[in-house]
């Protein structure tokens, strides 16, 4: 998986691409640490390029949410589609994150 950070409308956007599972842990964590340090607005996780996502990815999203909360920031999940959207719905993550 590739992870990168950009900024859009004053918010920090984490853009993920590829397969989001346990193997993506290190990359994701580094990106998260960087994103949380950014001064600007909310954190959006852009899932448009994510092909697959499993339960360890869900765990990592929660980790991001905890860290962001510690820094006083809100995390939203953006552009989930297909199988990714399905997993997020089944886990009722819509109750934990705004879905945009």
């Amino acid at each position, binding site marked *: 998986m590739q992870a990168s950070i950009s900024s859009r409308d004053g918010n920090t956007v984490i853009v993920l691409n590829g*397969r989001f*599972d*346990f*193997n993506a*842990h*290190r990359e994701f*964590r580094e990106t998260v640490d960087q994103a949380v340090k950014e001064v600007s607005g909310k954190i959006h996780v852009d899932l448009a390029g994510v092909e*697959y*996502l*499993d*339960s*360890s990815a*869900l*765990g*990592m999203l*929660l*980790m991001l949410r905890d860290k962001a909360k510690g820094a006083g920031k809100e995390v939203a999940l953006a552009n989930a589609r*297909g*199988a*990714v959207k*399905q*997993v997020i719905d*089944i*886990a*009722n*993550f819509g*109750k*934990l994150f705004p879905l945009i």
Partner: protein
Amino acid sequence: MNILLVEDSAAEVSALSAILHAQGHTLVVCAGGDAALLQFSHQAYDVIITGAFVPGLDGFALTQAIQQRIVPRWQPVIIVFRECDEGLQARAIEAGADSFLVAPVTAATLNARLMVIERLQAMQRDADARMTQLSRFLAAEEEDLHIARHLIEHQMSPDGVRRLEDPAIEVWQQTCTRLGGNMVSVNRAPNGVLHAMLGDASGYGLSACVSLLPLIAPFYRMTSKGLSLQTIVRELNAKVRQALPENRAVAAQLVAVDTREGVISVWNGGMPTAFMLDGFGHHFMEFPLTHPPFGMVSDDDFDDRIEQHAFTRGEQLVLVTDGLLEAVGPLGKRFGEEGLAASLVGLPRSQRRKELMAAIDVHLAGEAPADDMTLLLIDCEKEAIPAHPLPAKVVSPRQLGHWHFELLIGVNEFSHIDVVPLLLDVVGRFESMQGKTGELFVILSELFNNALDHGILRLDSRLKHAHDGLETWLLLREERLTALSHGEICIAVAQVNEGGRLWLRVHCRDSGPGFDVASSLARLAQQSQEHVDERMHGRGLALIKRMAERLSFNESGNEVTVLLPIGNA
């Protein structure tokens, strides 16, 4: 007063009328007994004053006749004698007179006698009024009990039919005359899980039954919707608080029996300890009182935690109301936990209810029970899951839509091959699977990671929850992977065409010792569709369970089969 005077002597009539008129009484005079009886049958009089020896019916016969007619009430009668004769006076009292007078009658004596009679009559009127009131209350009470019984019997289910005929359930109930407010409700969730509720409202009669009403409809409705026991008990507590006056509580015990997973769940709010008997009738597991009754605590303080236990075959859960334990026999002894245990323990399942009924009969020895007594027996029989979740039959490889492959890897491959994409790549080449690999990815990823991380490497997921837990987990995982000397994982994927539908069967086996299947599945079984899990781990099986048609394990937990519908053939 309104007085009937029976006298044939004109002198007597005029002497007595003078006294009576002076006191303001109204007077009707008859010259003989027969005329007086006729007159009496037309109109009631406060007092009858009769001469002892009037023509026709004499005073005695007249008195007797009148008293007989007016039973069960009482007619005050005074008999007047010409002379003082104790024998005749005794006869007068025997005949039913209140008192007697001897002529010549003085105003003082007559007025005194009438005053006594007036007082007695006032008392009688008072007593009559109370009697009428009492019988009205009694009729109202009976009507209430009638309504109460009807309410409970017809609210047992929304369609008014008592659905207690579930084959897994045996109920015995004896209500007391006042109705003690015991209630049993049973329903099945869409996935076959049995929900049972044993309730016991405080108080008696209609008020007890009305207290039960808020529980019944939500219990049936929520069970039919497939909501979890925890969601249901939380709602019932809220309903009782809404519907009943403050501090009016309803004790209840709710049970969920999942025969597919072999897990029983109990929420006990203010009821006696429930217990499990094994197939030989040995007492081996208790579900004690853990919560206050419904209605006692606010939504915020409400605790929906349930007790769970795994079962296999032949177990039975025993639930009772306190009326059974507190049943007091003629010697003043309560039936108690000992009486209950003595009548159930050691007996085969089929005999327990009968034995208990007999034991209670002997214990009460004809005494009426003071409260409702209910026994609820629930069979706990785990379904035998076939090794093959699909109908077993020889599958010809040439059959349309069937294919199969498996991958067996060992220690050397674990860290060098990215297994899930490899499998997904193979599966994705089959025409039927194109564009459908999303769910399969989740299933393969969860199964393989579980097999490697938990099955082979014995890592504990709870590690992830600590501060920097994922990092610690990753380090430990690599450490163990490097040190690993043996172990293998086999994943088999097959597509089968059954009943006009295509299914994907994923089977994963690892060489590890397995895990506690029952308690994991029990936790899963309790999660409702709306469940939001905020933990860092433990989400994988829940995802599979909601995506797949079936998720089943072997007993030790190192083999798992998932069945996924992928469309029409």
